[in-house]
């Protein structure tokens, strides 16, 4: 931040701005703002991944899991509690979970306390087995009781009924907790192992969200999550808003949807700005230099007395927490938690494309990549359809090839993203805005 802005960076951001403004003129301002808001969220996710990859060279392919945990946080924090469910089995569920956690902690403590040998393995196995049986006994009946309470509309414990904005930091905390567990086990081993471990934990988190109905209703989804901004309908009924709208001579319905989106955008920009500021501060601090030193040469950094493993753990947790915050923001924007929509290609690997294309090791690059790639991801589909229509214009209606090509146009986006990633990696491996 000390050197002022590079004209190239300004130009690139200007280009992306033109893309969004162009969308506003060609399609509609509503569309442009929808893409822009998700672009903001994507940029934050890209910032999180960039911390891990750009600062420390950690290869995390479990972004989806951390994002989903952020989404879970919105339900746990903001949804009203379900008192019937709590009295039916809530405490039992909690007790079961505590028992399960105690078993694992106990097993780890025993493992560390006992001398090496066959006895240690046996004792640990017995402790784990007894603990698991107890956990299932207590937990299962509790969960069943909770899920039996009015399954069509609730069937879960609900949340705490607190303001939704509180969910954003909580989402970060949840993700940080999961990252701590993963980091403790997989960091310090080869880089590929961390990749596979994160890939696995992401799938497991999604499986938990889909199947544990007592937690967040599973595939029945939680809808109607609180919003930090007013509802369109309320705006359309408010005298003041209508007065304002009629002054500028706009259609009240369109104006209300755009206002809501602008409010979201303002909130998101606030978070993104804060995160960029913090990241830049960190990047330019002694801590940031140490991180880069570790990334560039672990051996010599270790020789200088830097604790490589715990620094890696630190940055891994921080980056995952940022992804968690972004996940909470996304669920807030959607007002619903739909576990079925979490796809690794969309929520893990696309974020990687953003970071690589934008410029790994540069916060502004990650943000740029977030906006650019998200815009492309959304727009490639209609563009692909246009292309296919152009290609097949000569064919007769109902021709099977024409039908097939038109139907498959949606899959063009995966192809395009792969192409972009490979081209950037080959011809501009440092990304659009390289590390300074």
């Amino acid at each position, binding site marked *: 931040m000390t050197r002022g802005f590079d004209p190239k960076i300004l130009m690139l951001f200007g280009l992306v701005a033109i893309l969004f403004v162009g969308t506003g003129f060609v399609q509609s301002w509503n569309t442009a703002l929808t893409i822009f808001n998700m672009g903001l969220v994507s940029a934050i996710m890209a910032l999180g991944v960039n911390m891990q990859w750009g600062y420390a060279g950690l*290869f995390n392919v479990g972004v989806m899991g951390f994002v989903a945990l952020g989404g879970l946080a919105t339900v746990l924090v903001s949804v009203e509690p379900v008192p019937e469910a709590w009295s039916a089995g809530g405490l039992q569920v909690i007790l079961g979970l505590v028992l399960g956690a105690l078993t694992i902690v106990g097993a780890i403590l025993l493992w560390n306390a006992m001398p090496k040998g066959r006895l240690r393995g046996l004792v640990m196995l017995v402790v784990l087995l007894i603990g698991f049986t107890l956990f299932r006994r207590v937990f299962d009946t509790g969960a069943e009781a909770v899920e039996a309470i009015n399954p069509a509309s609730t069937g879960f414990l609900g949340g705490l009924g607190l303001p939704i904005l509180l969910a954003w930091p909580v989402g970060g905390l949840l993700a940080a907790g999961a990252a701590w567990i993963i980091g403790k*086990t997989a960091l310090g081993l080869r880089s*590929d192992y961390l990749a596979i471990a994160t890939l*696995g*934990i992401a799938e*497991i988190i999604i*499986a938990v969200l889909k199947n544990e109905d007592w937690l967040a209703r599973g595939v029945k989804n939680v809808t109607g999550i609180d919003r930090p901004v007013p509802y369109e309908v309320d705006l359309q009924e408010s005298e003041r808003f209508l007065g304002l709208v009629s002054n500028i001579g706009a259609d009240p319905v369109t104006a209300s949807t755009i206002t809501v989106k602008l409010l979201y955008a303002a909130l998101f920009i606030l978070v993104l700005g804060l995160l960029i500021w913090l990241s830049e501060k960190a990047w330019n601090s002694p801590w940031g230099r140490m991180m880069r030193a570790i990334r560039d040469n672990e051996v010599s950094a270790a020789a200088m007395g830097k604790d490589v493993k715990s620094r890696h753990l630190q940055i891994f947790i921080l980056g995952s927490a940022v992804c968690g915050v972004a996940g909470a923001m996304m669920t807030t924007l959607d007002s619903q938690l739909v576990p079925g929509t979490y796809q690794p290609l969309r929520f893990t690997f696309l974020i990687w*494309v953003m970071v690589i294309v934008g410029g790994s090791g540069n916060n502004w690059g990650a943000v740029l990549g977030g906006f650019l790639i998200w815009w492309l991801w959304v727009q490639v589909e209609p563009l692909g359809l246009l292309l296919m229509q152009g290609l097949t214009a000569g064919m007769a209606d109902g021709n099977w090839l024409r039908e097939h090509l038109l139907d498959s146009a949606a*899959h063009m986006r995966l192809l395009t993203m792969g192409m972009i990633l490979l081209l950037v990696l080959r011809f501009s491996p440092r990304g659009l805005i390289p590390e300074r």
Partner: protein
Amino acid sequence: MDVLNAFVTLANFVIIPATAYGAQLALGALGVTLIYGILRFSNFAHGDTMAFGTMVTIFATWGLQAAGITFGILPTALLALPLGIAATALLVIGTDRTIYRFYRQQKAKPVIFVIASLGVMFIMNGIVRFFIGVDDQRFADGERFIISARTFRDMTGLDEGLAFRTTQGITIVVAMIAVILLFWFLNRTRTGKSMRAFSDNEDLALLSGINPERVVLITWIIVAALATTAGVLYGLDKSFKPFTYFQLLLPIFASAIVGGLGNPLGAILGGFLIAFSEVGVTYAFRKVVGYLGPTEWQPDGLLQLLSTDYKFAVSFGILLIVLLFKPTGIMKGKSV
């Protein structure tokens, strides 16, 4: 006490399905482990390579069926398999030439290869979805059962049936043939030996005049054959769906790592270990225990450790345990 019925139930629901699944995982893990040994990176596009090969095989199968050619009691897909392997070999050699070779010449870090393989994954995924779509495809034909549950009951007079599906039998036989061929190739032929030499010590291998590009080329062809075979067998046994193949990446990687990355024998062992744990942990043992104990002991619960939705957690759990206690895998693998 009814040991026979208990065993038959166990065989029907655990041993046979897990053996077939283990063979499929082992073939997949062999591909991953070979790439790791020779090219020294984890290929994230492996699941989608399997999907591509299976897709070509499915199209060829449909073509054969349309032309009225079938394979008698065996699935037609087996006839179409060579075509699938050939197409996949061309594809992976093409990706190697256009993408990976550049980074090899640059001596890029392994993680750059991994990121490149993410790009390849996107493209292959796009191609597969573009051609065949995202839906489930079933392409098994021919005889459905080697032994059906009813025949088995009539034959033996037991209460429990034992179904042995043709696809399971074929999986096991084909996997065995593939593995024997692979090990014969690696241990007995000159090219195979040069591959192992290259994997063990690249510099020494280069010194002794082994052509690295040739080794890489052969590796990709073998990987294409293994991946396509694994994919087709999995598709015959269950069904073909692009997203499921992508998800297979996790158990396949877990198998390869558990066995020791870069170690072919370990990959096979890992595949079966993961498959048996996955099926065993998610199977409800109620019936089996019911047969073994006296009637009044019949348990109330299902005796299922984890619901089937958590099968990923099993491969993941085993992976974590191995990483914590034996980071190079059960059979000693590489750790670059």
